[in-house]
């Protein structure tokens, strides 16, 4: 709860900062507008202040939760809100302010502590104030959970907030664009500070644009661990203290074993380096090919260093005996959804290398078929030094069904090979140096179908106070993986300009 209060507090601060900056920028923009009459006319880079508002609801489900070692419910719901404001500071300068709040509830992350009343319906009453998600009143009989059941632990919900401030300056001849940005993001176990700069050069009668962009993200974990591992390490393996003191540990036959003779994680070392730094360099080239076609190429080079594994995610080894807490009757059905009352104690958290080099290369090709139809195509090849190669193909076909309405049918196909450190539940060996059972790093392919509709108010005739409506859109997408994960997302967006 303390983390959520911090997140709400941070959200308030970000929104207040954004509002303050918007007011300052508005004053600055109006000041510049009044000076405009004395200078030589040139078309402004941005004529009016523009405001984009976007909200979305996302829901997913699947059977391969990483928090519970590659099996278990992946149910997650997320509601998000974003506001982006672009403010012309002068004929040449634009300030962009962007804020996002995203609130989720997740069965998967709730199972960081699966023993928080998952089956018994008890509340998570973490009374000792250490915010460890532990239910301090739990009795032995009530201590049961399952990877297939959402627990009521505090980690079942969280708020992610982010803010981004960007500034761009365009030269008088409109052929050079400089930009800089700074951003911040926070969630209960993770925070990020980022900054970057960009430059774009247009030439060949503005048919060609070459861009370069660099970004640095300095991220920090506030690690949360699976309850059994956190408690084991915290109490130095003393099963008479903390979470384990009144809990029976069962072997795979359902026989109660003493702590000292039974389960223990293979390592007492948790996160050593709480930093995760990302350095990205992006090159882009855009080219007009004809009066109806244009293309752009993107090549990124992303280097990541630090703790790249997720400390919440459990791993189970095939060469280690299995131990459980809960109802022994459910042990034979552990990997099936009929298991509602027993949970297997983790052998370790996932371990991954402390560096990663990603090289994605993408291409967009847009073709204006006629005044009713446009083809928007995207392809990306991705490779990294963890062994993942992937291909992404995306096509969207905006169809103008009237002067004001456009529909957006789309299809996206994605495929990737598995990271060399991935193996399924109970398939890793404890002798391996790196291991994960996160299915986002497995071999899979997915297909996504989407449909959107947008209303365009061509002359912003519809007004709300001083806001003139530019467009309003509604989008829906459905995606399904061949591993079973599927998600739906619906977004509602609107764009205004200040007259």
């Amino acid at each position, binding site marked *: 709860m303390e983390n959520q209060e911090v997140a709400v507090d941070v959200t308030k601060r970000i929104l207040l900062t954004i509002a303050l900056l918007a007011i300052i920028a508005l004053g600055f923009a109006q000041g510049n507008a009044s000076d405009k009459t004395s200078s030589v006319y040139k078309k402004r880079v941005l004529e009016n202040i523009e405001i984009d508002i976007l909200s979305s609801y*996302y829901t*997913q489900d699947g059977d391969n939760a990483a928090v519970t070692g590659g099996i278990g419910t992946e149910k997650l719901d997320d509601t*998000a809100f*974003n506001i982006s404001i672009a403010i012309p500071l002068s004929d040449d300068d634009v300030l962009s302010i962007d804020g996002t709040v*995203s609130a989720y509830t997740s069965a998967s992350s709730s199972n960081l502590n699966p023993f928080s009343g998952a089956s018994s319906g008890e509340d998570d009453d973490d009374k000792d104030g250490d915010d460890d998600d532990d239910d301090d009143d739990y009795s032995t009989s009530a201590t049961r959970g399952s990877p297939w059941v959402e627990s009521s632990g505090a980690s079942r919900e969280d708020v992610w907030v*982010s803010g981004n401030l960007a500034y761009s300056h365009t030269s008088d001849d409109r052929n050079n664009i400089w930009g800089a940005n700074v*951003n911040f993001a926070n*969630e209960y176990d*993770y925070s*990020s500070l*980022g900054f970057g700069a960009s430059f774009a050069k247009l030439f*060949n*009668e*503005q048919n*060609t644009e070459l861009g370069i962009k660099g*970004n640095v993200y300095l*991220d920090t974990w506030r690690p949360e661990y699976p309850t059994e591992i956190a408690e084991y390490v915290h109490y130095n393996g003393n099963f008479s203290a903390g979470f384990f003191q009144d809990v029976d540990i069962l072997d795979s036959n359902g026989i109660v074993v003493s702590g000292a003779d039974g389960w223990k994680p293979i390592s007492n070392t948790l996160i050593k380096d709480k930093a995760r*730094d*990302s350095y*990205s360099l*992006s090159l*882009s080239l855009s080219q007009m*090919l*004809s*009066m109806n076609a*244009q*293309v*752009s*190429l*993107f090549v990124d*080079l*992303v280097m990541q260093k630090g703790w790249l594994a997720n400390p919440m995610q459990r791993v189970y080894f095939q060469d280690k005996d299995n131990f459980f807490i809960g109802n022994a009757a459910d042990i034979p059905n552990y990997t099936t959804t009929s298991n509602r009352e027993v949970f297997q104690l983790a052998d370790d958290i996932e371990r991954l290398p402390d560096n990663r080099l*990603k090289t*994605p*290369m*993408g291409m*967009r090709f847009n073709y*204006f078929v006629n005044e009713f139809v*446009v083809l*928007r195509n995207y392809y990306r090849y*991705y*490779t*990294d*030094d*963890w062994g993942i190669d*992937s291909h*992404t193909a995306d096509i969207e076909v905006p169809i103008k069904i009237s002067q004001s309405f456009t529909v*957006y049918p789309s299809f996206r196909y*994605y495929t990737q090979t598995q*990271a060399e450190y991935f193996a399924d539940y109970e398939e890793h060996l404890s002798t391996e140096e790196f291991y994960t059972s996160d299915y*986002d*790093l497995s071999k899979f392919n997915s297909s996504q179908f*989407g449909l*959107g509709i947008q209303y365009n108010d061509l002359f912003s005739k519809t007004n709300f106070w001083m806001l003139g409506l530019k467009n309003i*859109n509604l*989008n829906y997408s459905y995606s399904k993986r061949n591993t079973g994960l599927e*998600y739906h*997302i619906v*977004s509602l967006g609107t*764009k205004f300009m200040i007259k």
Partner: protein
Amino acid sequence: MKNKILSLVLVSIFILLLLSSCTAVKSYQKINLSDPDMELSERHAKKFETAAQVYREGASGANGGKSGGGCGCN
């Protein structure tokens, strides 16, 4: 890995040389290219969809947006 990156860079240079030979489109001929749906970037309406993909897939980047950092995702 190095060979793959080298191949990507070589392909990029080849395409760049190919594109630079294209005939220039004059300003007055750009009306179709100026259609909002012809923008060479993702629609703002897809912002959260892309964010979900960044979380749920091993690959990210090369779409003009964020390519790493800022979240506890892959």
